[in-house]
């Protein structure tokens, strides 16, 4: 571990940014009180209002395609043959062996001269792909690279996670800074071997360490990455218009923001957990897409992911003038949040195939 955060900050040789972005959230919602009704007789409290649930014909491949197409629409006129990487981070890839990424790459026309691979790092697989995309484009190996974080999160019936495990995510087309709607000022990672949440091969539902998932896991890594990046950049919370954190529930990101010195106003637009739940690998980056939907040129945004196991990636972005014309080119994140059809617990069990006979 380096003590010198200037050395630890990630910054490519040439400036890169986000050329296009897009979100996707399934339309179905399971109110947390439904889970509470089934499992705790309606007592015990709920960590969020409701979570998103994928439809019967939706999975991480179809949802990633939706988000990628929105990103391509925002980028506007980018030749897909120049996209040299399509990377999808998720905990719920439809196949154990066979990439989701090739399916997505095919549908946006990036094949055949492209990298395609699936990433796994619990809830930060999406930002891990984003870090790699920044490096790929920043080194000049690629003009464009697409990074996606998307999940149809699994939770054991009756577990605390079942209230929040949601579905959704976002796609980012990374490209040269002069084409970008938002430029990366730097990024910073904080990773240790901390087993707070895991799912072993052939297991259907994840396990977790209860209270161990909080302070020594989520907070240590999220705050470590955020503080490291701000120290390296010489920025402070007041320098940012918005901040987005990984949001496994409504409480953790608000507590992290408070500990760092961010206000409710700064984190409000990117805080979606109460309405769609924890979309795992999509959680922090769909918060970013919601922020970009409302951002103005010159705004600065801090993005901090968290993945169990454990690690955090922090990114500092500055929004450019190009944002204004691109915001409206695709459905906004809040459009998806508002597109809502409530289901009961039984329907949810059917949709996510919890009944196995």
């Amino acid at each position, binding site marked *: 571990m380096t003590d010198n955060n200037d050395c630890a900050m990630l910054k490519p040789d040439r400036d890169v940014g986000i050329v296009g972005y897009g979100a996707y959230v399934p339309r179905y919602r399971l109110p947390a009180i439904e889970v509470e009704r089934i499992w705790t007789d309606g007592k*015990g409290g709920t960590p969020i209002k409701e979570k998103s649930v994928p439809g019967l014909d939706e999975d991480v491949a179809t949802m990633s395609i939706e988000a990628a197409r929105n990103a391509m629409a925002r980028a506007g006129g980018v030749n897909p043959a120049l996209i040299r990487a399509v990377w999808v981070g998720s905990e719920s890839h439809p196949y154990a062996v066979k990439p989701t990424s090739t399916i997505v790459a095919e549908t946006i026309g990036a094949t055949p001269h492209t990298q395609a691979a699936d990433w796994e790092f619990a809830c930060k697989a999406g930002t891990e792909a984003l870090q790699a995309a920044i490096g790929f484009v920043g080194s000049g190996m690629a003009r464009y690279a697409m990074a996606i974080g998307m999940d149809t999160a699994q939770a054991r019936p009756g577990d605390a996670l079942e209230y929040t495990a949601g579905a959704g995510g976002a796609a980012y087309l990374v490209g040269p800074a002069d084409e970008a709607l938002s430029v990366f000022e730097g990024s910073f990672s904080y990773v240790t071997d901390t087993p707070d949440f895991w799912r072993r091969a052939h297991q259907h539902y994840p396990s977790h*360490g*209860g*209270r*161990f998932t909080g*302070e*020594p896991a989520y907070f240590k890594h999220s705050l470590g990455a955020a503080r490291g990046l701000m120290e390296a950049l010489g920025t402070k919370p007041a320098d940012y218009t918005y901040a987005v954190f990984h949001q496994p529930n409504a409480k953790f990101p608000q507590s992290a923001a408070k500990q760092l010195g961010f206000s409710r106003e700064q984190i409000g637009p990117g805080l979606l957990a109460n309405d769609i739940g924890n979309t795992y690998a999509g959680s922090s980056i769909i918060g970013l897409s919601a922020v970009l939907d409302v951002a103005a040129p010159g705004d600065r945004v801090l993005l901090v992911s968290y993945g169990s196991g454990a690690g955090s990636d922090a990114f500092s972005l500055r929004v450019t003038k190009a944002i204004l014309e691109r915001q409206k080119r695709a459905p906004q994140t809040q459009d998806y949040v508002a597109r809502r059809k409530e289901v009961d617990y039984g329907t949810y069990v059917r949709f996510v195939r919890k009944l196995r006979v």
Partner: protein
Amino acid sequence: MRDVAIIGVGQIEVGEHWDTSLRHLSLGAVQAAIADAGVAQADALYVGNMLSGELAGQEHLGALVADFAGLRGIEAVKIEAACGSGAAALRMGYVAVAGGLADVVIVAGVEKMTDLLGHDTTAALALAADGEYEAFLGLSFVAVNALLMRRYMHEYGYSRQDFAPFAINAHKNAVNNPYAMFGFPVTAERFASAKMICDPISLLDSSPICDGAAAVVLAPADMARSLSAAPVRIAASAIGTDSLAVHDRRDPMVLDGAIISTRRAYEQAGVGPEDIYLFELHDAFSVMAALSLEGAGFAEKGQGLRLALDGEIGIDGRIPVNTMGGLKARGHPVGATGMYQIVEVVQQLRGLAGQNQVKDARLGMAQNIGGSGATVVTHILERME
């Protein structure tokens, strides 16, 4: 028999020490006690611990802690008596010094509980109950205490809410204890709405799962004055036992182990309950606080709870109880708890308890209970003038 004195105390903050291993927890307390005592070497080390094998994958703590504390070579063993392990270790240290077999003895209590998931910890704690006749039938340790609390309410006509003063008192006292896990107050309203754990035991009737370590250094009393500016004499050290299973007891509402242990302690010290300035009791669950007050002679049968309801357990009350937060609010790292109690009584007798100081405290009692009452260890400490 020689008189034995405590010449140094040390403790670490009770809490969830995610980044600290069992041996490091021990080291923190042992080093603090050695520094407080101002000694460089010791003849023996006794480590009180209940569940290191189950919860931390480590037994053989005597040699481990001795070596890690830089005391390689000295006599060192682990002492186990369920949640009463800490005070049981002190009893062994006392025996060694009183019997003239050792001069300077270190006694530590340590427990590391947070490395496993809740159900594993619950299963491990049930080892304190009767394995064949209680745990085998599915009774967790909290369930055993829930049966006792329900019976107490039934026998004497109390409500669940009547137990609130124990939690309120513990949390109030913990506010001024920097080593406490829960340094915040709670109200009767919060008690009433607390999450149910095992009816009628709610979260606020229960001590927390946590990590901690506390230690003392012992020396013969005649040497103590030259070694320490504020030595405290162990006026009594006694262990009493009872059946492990509640159903085997003479009366489930009476802690015979506490009666035996306390009677011996009073006889050794030549005092009675009316002479005790403060009582650090074993409130693992609030019903145990009521039963302890009765077993130790501070209240008649069924009246322990009445003492709390009448406001007699506060710092200025008739018998101040759990003056630094007790198991409920300081925390209950099981095998370390008995040593925390001793450290806290020493703080009181030295006049170093800050805002929680019991006025003119001269004699203090600590009672550490293993299981639901099968091992009861009582110590009476006295300020050396």
